[in-house]
């Protein structure tokens, strides 16, 4: 149920992100979802990609600072109240979220990527409430 996310440290420099997407494109690696946390001087790029180990390797070779982080992908319904319902379950069970980002996958569903201190607890709680979770094999199709 745990999926691998790629995190990259990026200085705020023109062209740096383009350089990265170029490397992934050259290696035929698809980006399913991403978000950037930015500060004044640098950003942290977080991505869900197909073949994360390969992506990490090629980026490191090109001098990027990369880390593979465990996250959970939670599938919710793409309609009003969908996110609220899921978050309510998480907060009722006192699990703190470090960060999250989401993308819609088709008309009826959306996927929320969550990073938390205790991922296993989130997984347990969500499964208890019959919430659908993203499996590693699902990523390429996302």
């Amino acid at each position, binding site marked *: 149920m745990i999926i691998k996310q790629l995190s990259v440290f990026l200085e705020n420099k023109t062209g740096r992100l383009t350089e990265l997407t170029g490397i992934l494109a050259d290696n035929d690696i698809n980006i399913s979802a991403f978000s950037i*946390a930015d*500060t004044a001087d*640098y950003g942290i790029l977080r991505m869900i990609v197909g073949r994360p180990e390969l992506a990490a390797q090629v980026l490191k070779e090109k001098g990027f*600072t*990369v*880390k593979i982080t465990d996250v959970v992908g939670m599938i919710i319904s793409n309609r009003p109240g969908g996110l609220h319902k899921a978050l309510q379950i998480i907060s009722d069970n006192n699990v703190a979220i470090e960060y999250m980002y989401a993308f819609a996958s088709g008309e009826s569903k959306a996927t929320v990527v969550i990073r938390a201190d205790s991922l296993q607890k989130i997984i347990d709680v969500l499964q208890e409430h019959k919430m659908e979770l993203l499996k590693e094999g699902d990523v390429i199709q996302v």
Partner: protein
Amino acid sequence: MIWNEHYECMEREELLKLQGERVKEMVKRVYDTVPFYRQKLQEAGIEPGDIKGIEDLQKLPFTTKQDLRDNYPFGLFAVPQPDIVRFHASSGTTGKPTVVGYTHNDIQMWSEVVARSLTMAGVTKADIIQVAYGYGLFTGGLGLHYGAEKVGASVVPISGGNTKKQLQLIEDFGSTVLACTPSYAAFIGESLVEEKIDPRKIKLKSGVFGAEPWTQEMRAQIEQVLGIKAYDIYGLTEIIGPGVSMECQFQRGMHIFEDHFIPEIINPDTGELLPYGELGELVFTPATKEAMPLIRYRTRDLTRLHADKCQCGRTLVRMEKCVGRSDDMLIIRGVNVFPSQVESVLLEMSETKPHYLIVVDRENNLDTMEIQVEIEEEFFSDEVKELEGLRHRIKANISSTLGISATIRLVEPGTIERSMGKAKRVIDKRNL
């Protein structure tokens, strides 16, 4: 006005004779009381009796900042600790400060040379002098304070910072003299404009500025905005503090109080003595200091000396504004900063690499320091709070070691230029 005509206008022949006597006495004294110097002189094959006059000074070995560090804290003191009445210190390269001690007589002598300096800037007992140098281990605040009291001026010991209060007292007390670092003087000037204080309502007439390098352009700017005449004062903690030399009203260099601080200019590479007028490293022998006399202390400041008589009537040699340093020390907001200090902080922290770049600039007339630091790959976290926490830890460690704050910028590993030879660690954009 001349504070001490006897010494400041002495015939040079007579002055050289006096210097000779003082060096002779001092060498004998340190030989007897400072084991470090006894050993150093013995190694050089010199007996105190070999020093007969000022011409023998160049036979003596140099003292360096490293010697001060090696003898931290009290190893170079020539008197027992109970005779010390005050300590001062300046930041050193290794996190350990350079410590100096003063006896009662040293404080008297220091007050005397600062009184001479202030008199050069036209300060009299009728003046109100606002001392906005930092008070504390830094020599600026207390050094100016005691000299100003000796002159009999009314001292406002406000110390540095709190600019609103500075302006308020300039206005309400009618301060006539401002003493601080030139960059702070410029900042006070700008704040005056911002606060829309009418320059005609303030009574400042002169400024005594030093402790950091500044340009003629900056002088003109400060003089214009504050409506004052700005004077340059020079000094260094190891020798005494401010008051080693000072500009007179003709501003043709700073007169060195040579009866106490004997200057020489040497070739920094060979140590060879250079004649007046040539550019080299300034060396001082503070011969009359009781607590910590030093033999031929290398300041690392590069300048020239001129001995022709000044229109003011003083016969004391004049030193030009220092044109640079023969080592890598930076002076930022009046504080000595060595790039190696930054390196030692980063080396102590496992999360960073010792690759860094210091960018010094001057914004709104205040020095700024940014340190670019490469993060260690294995400590890269994808959570902003972790990285920001790291940045703040670096900032705190830097500020406690350097004594001044810096902006920390985290950069990607491998992006700071590597060099096979001497790494480029500093970009100084201040054009001093």
